[in-house]
Structure formats: C-alpha cells, structure tokens
C-alpha cells in the first residue's frame, strides 16, 4: 500500500498538510506534532515586507467553527527565509510557502526571492478576505486571477498552487481561470466571509468587522467546491475547509482532492494531523486501496 502522493511533480509521503495560517511555520507545533509525519507543511502567508496585521480582537468563536481577521501579520520574506526555512528543512517533509501581497508586484517580489530558496512549492493566497487591498480582489474575478497566475508563474521556480476563495458564484470558473494562467495546482477553500455582532455592546466582535469563517461548519461547502473544481480542471486539488477527522479528509479525497490541508482543527486538537495521516492509511487498508490516487474523485 502506498501513501505517497504526487502533487504537480512533488512527491509527498502522505496526502496530509496543514492549512496556511493555522500552524505558524511549524515551530509552535513542534511540541505537539512530529513534523516528519506530515506530507508537507504549509506556512503562514508571507509578504515582501513585514505586515502588522489587523487590530484585535482578531478571532471569534462561532457555532461549529471560528472567524478570524488576523490580517496576514507576517515577519516579511527576509526573516522568513533566514529563520523559518532552515527550521523546516530539519524535518523530512515538503515545504509549501504561502505567499500574500497587496499588488501583483508584491507577489512577484516574494516569488522571485523564493526562487533560490530550498522550498518545494508555492501557494499563492489570492483569497484572503481580511486585508483591504489585494488578496480577495484577485480571488473573486476570473480575469484577475488568471493574470496574477501568469505573472507569478514567470518568476516561480517551484510549482505554483493557487489558493481560491469560496466567496464566488462559480468556483469552477475560478479554477479554470488559474489553470488557464498556468497554475500547477489549486487549493481550496479559503475562508467564507462572515460577521458577528455583540448584541450587548452593539458592536462588531472583530475589530475588522468581518472575518473569515473556518472549521467544521464550512466542511460541506468545501466538499462541494472541491467536487466542482475537480470536475472543471485537470490540475491537482488540495482540499481544505473544516477537516477535523479522518472521515472528513477521506470525504475530500473521494470528492476530488489529491491531498488535504487541516486548518482550524489544529487549534482544538493539536495532534489531529498525525491522527488523520494514520486514519487514511487505516481506511485504505480496510477498503483495499493500494494507493491514494485510486481514491481521488472516486465518487462521481
């Protein structure tokens, strides 16, 4: 039996990674997770320069999930390359660097800088609902998404995963657009935009007013979108959104994802990724699958 997956030419030891922004650069989870057990580590979004992020409160609990408006606080690409890449390289896992920016130039600058670094894949976040400029603007318009993909591909030395927003009328159209732009893979879904109001203070719970909804509450929406994207494009899909246990992960794979990312679940169950990696293996044994790829998109 073979747990390996090949995502755009990069071989992961198993199909499990973490969702960007929920795992830092791995250092904080080192005490809870054996990073060698992950197919890949996807880092928190990094920009060309340090970003302060949004004011607090940045998170709120919602029914069956959470909402965040961290606003892509990050130390900037220089410190990232100096500190976080060497840290992750100590482990036997693939490194996916999530990239954010406010303009096409910002993205390209980071991608160009990463070209000479020892990392495995790039994930381009064009779907963050929590920053005013950039991000989501690219992620809600197929033309813009195609253009930024093309621009980034010019500078990229590693395979490029485009990360899509669920806040769109047609995820299939968005997936096709980035495929047309030359994306090597897509990942979805980023968070759904939500809002919470404190009725006693009569004020928004998050300083940013809106935030991105994540966690088990969004899982069925994510599965549907993965299914729709898988039926629209040929490039591999990394599925995420509310994955909390093995069943959720297998569901994503059966819907069409070649690999899965676990996000919010890390916050309430730090060892969840290892359990899911084991769980998928167990599921494959019980159901006589020889390889992960046999399961991908099996339910039509």
């Amino acid at each position, binding site marked *: 039996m073979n747990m390996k997956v090949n995502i755009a030419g990069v071989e992961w030891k198993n199909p499990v990674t973490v969702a960007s922004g929920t795992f830092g650069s791995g250092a904080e989870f080192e005490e809870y997770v054996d990073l060698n057990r992950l197919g890949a580590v996807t880092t928190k979004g990094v920009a060309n320069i*340090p970003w302060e992020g949004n004011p607090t*409160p940045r998170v709120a609990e919602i029914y*069956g999930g959470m909402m965040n408006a961290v606003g892509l606080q990050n*130390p900037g690409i220089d410190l990232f390359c100096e500190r976080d890449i060497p840290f992750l390289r100590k482990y036997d896992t693939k490194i996916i660097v999530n990239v954010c920016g406010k303009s096409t130039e910002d993205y390209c600058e980071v991608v160009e800088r990463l070209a000479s670094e020892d990392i495995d894949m790039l994930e381009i976040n064009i779907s963050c609902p929590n920053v005013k400029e950039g991000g989501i603007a690219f992620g809600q318009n197929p033309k813009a998404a195609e253009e930024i993909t093309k621009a980034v591909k010019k500078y990229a030395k590693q395979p490029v995963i485009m990360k899509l927003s669920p806040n769109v009328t047609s995820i299939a159209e968005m997936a096709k657009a980035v495929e047309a732009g030359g994306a090597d893979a897509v990942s979805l879904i980023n968070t759904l935009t939500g809002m919470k109001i404190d009725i006693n203070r009569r004020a928004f719970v998050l300083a940013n007013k809106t935030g991105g909804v994540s966690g088990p509450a969004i899982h069925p929406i994510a599965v549907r979108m993965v299914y729709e994207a898988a039926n629209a494009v040929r490039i591999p899909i990394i599925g995420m959104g509310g994955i909390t246990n093995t069943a959720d992960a297998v569901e994503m794979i059966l819907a069409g994802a070649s690999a899965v990312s676990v996000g919010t679940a890390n916050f309430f169950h730090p060892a969840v990724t290892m359990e899911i990696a084991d769980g998928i293996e167990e599921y494959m044994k019980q159901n006589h699958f020889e390889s992960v790829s046999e399961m991908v998109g099996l339910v039509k």
Partner: protein
Amino acid sequence: MNKKKEIAVVASQEMLADGIFSMWIQTEAAKSAKPGQFISMYTNDGSKLLPRPISICEIDAENEKLRVVYRVTGENTGTEEFSKLQAGDTLPVIGPLGNGFPFEKAAGKRVFLMGGGIGVPPILELAKQMKCGKKQIVAGYRDSQTFLKEQFEANGEVYISTEDGSVGTKGNVMDAVAEHNLSADMIFACGPTPMLRAIKQFAEEKDIECYISLEERMACGIGACLACVCKSKEKDHHSNVNNKRICKDGPVFLSTEVEI
C-alpha cells in the same frame, strides 16, 4: 513532541461567589505549572470549539492537581458548561501555557501583588510561591463577596478594595494603595485593562518594575495563529513587527514593554 491535549478529570467544584466558581482538576499539567501561567479549557460541546484560557489559581504538583477560579460570563457559554461539571466528569485541557510571573526577581523586595475582579485568582499561587521582603496583596472586588480573601491572609498583608465600599477601601486597588499609603519596589498585577493601565502608569511614574498579565481572544493558545497579540514597544523578535503574542510571549509582560 512532549505536549498534548489531555482529558483532565474534575476533582471538585464549588461556587465561591455569585457566578464565580472554583474547580480542582486532576491533570499532568500540574507537574510543570508556574504561577501566572494558564490552561486552555475546552468544552465537551461540539458547537463551541475554541479554548477558554483560564489562569492557574493554585498548584498541587505532588498530587497533579490544579485549581482554577473562573467567572460564568453568561448563559449558554463555555464557562457555564464548566460550572455544571461535577467530580469525576472530564474536561479537555492543554497546558500549562504562557510564561508566568518572574517571581524569582522579587527576592528581598517590597512587592505589590495586585488582582482585580476575576484577575484575583492567579495572584494566589503567586503569593504562595513568592519569597520577598514585604508581600502586600491588594485585591479589588465588586462587592462584599471577597472570594479567596482568607487564603490571601495566610500568605501576606492583605488590602481589599470594593467597588461598592462594602469591604475595605471604596474604589479600586489603586484607591486602596492610596488610602493605606503603601509603597513597593516591584509590582505583579492581573485584572481588567483599565486597572492594568492605571497600575502601569503609576509604576512608570514611580519607576517601579511592574509585571502585568494581559488578556486577549485566543484561537490556538500556543503561539501559532497570531490571534492574541498586543502592541509591543519594540519590534518583537518573533513577529518582526510591534506585536507580541499574549499566549506565548505572555500573558505576563514587563509593563514598559507593551502598550495597552
């Protein structure tokens, strides 16, 4: 890979005052806990997934027990669920988390240990463990329900303030300091932000080394998600911006390091 979420077991639970509960839990986290650290407490209800960070009030390392004292913040909240737990019930926790109070620095000094409202409980273990010249515990309450007061009295000089004036000084902890004309070389404080702001200002004016324990909404509790930041004076070495993570770099900060 030496830490994990653990299923703690409730050893006992009692109500200390209106809406204020005290719970002893059996947990490995007790072995390495320090005053000023906290634990993330999780509900058993699948609709409420985020941790409730609660400070450690007392530590019984030998018997692997921790005490937490917490306020039920409303109906249908996680803390309300906790308040219904009984001995033998389980409670998922992660901890101990955060840095804790650097109480070693107090050796030989005249110290204020200041707690306000639901910030009072973490001061208890601090008072128990701290060795210093003069231990002045200043505790501020809403009214005459001065929970933990007897235990404080066994561990230092105690000054009480109450908002309604029913016990001790009418007003807040700073009013108690003023009324009794107290002074100190070092301050450790936990409580609502306005109180901490006043203490920070007082300490900086008088050039007193002052440690304050901050609060913010959390998602991970372990430094990964960047939810719980506060503004730091200097660029933080981790974040490379003027932000520190309360869960990981704190919750206790030197007052001059942070802006509140």
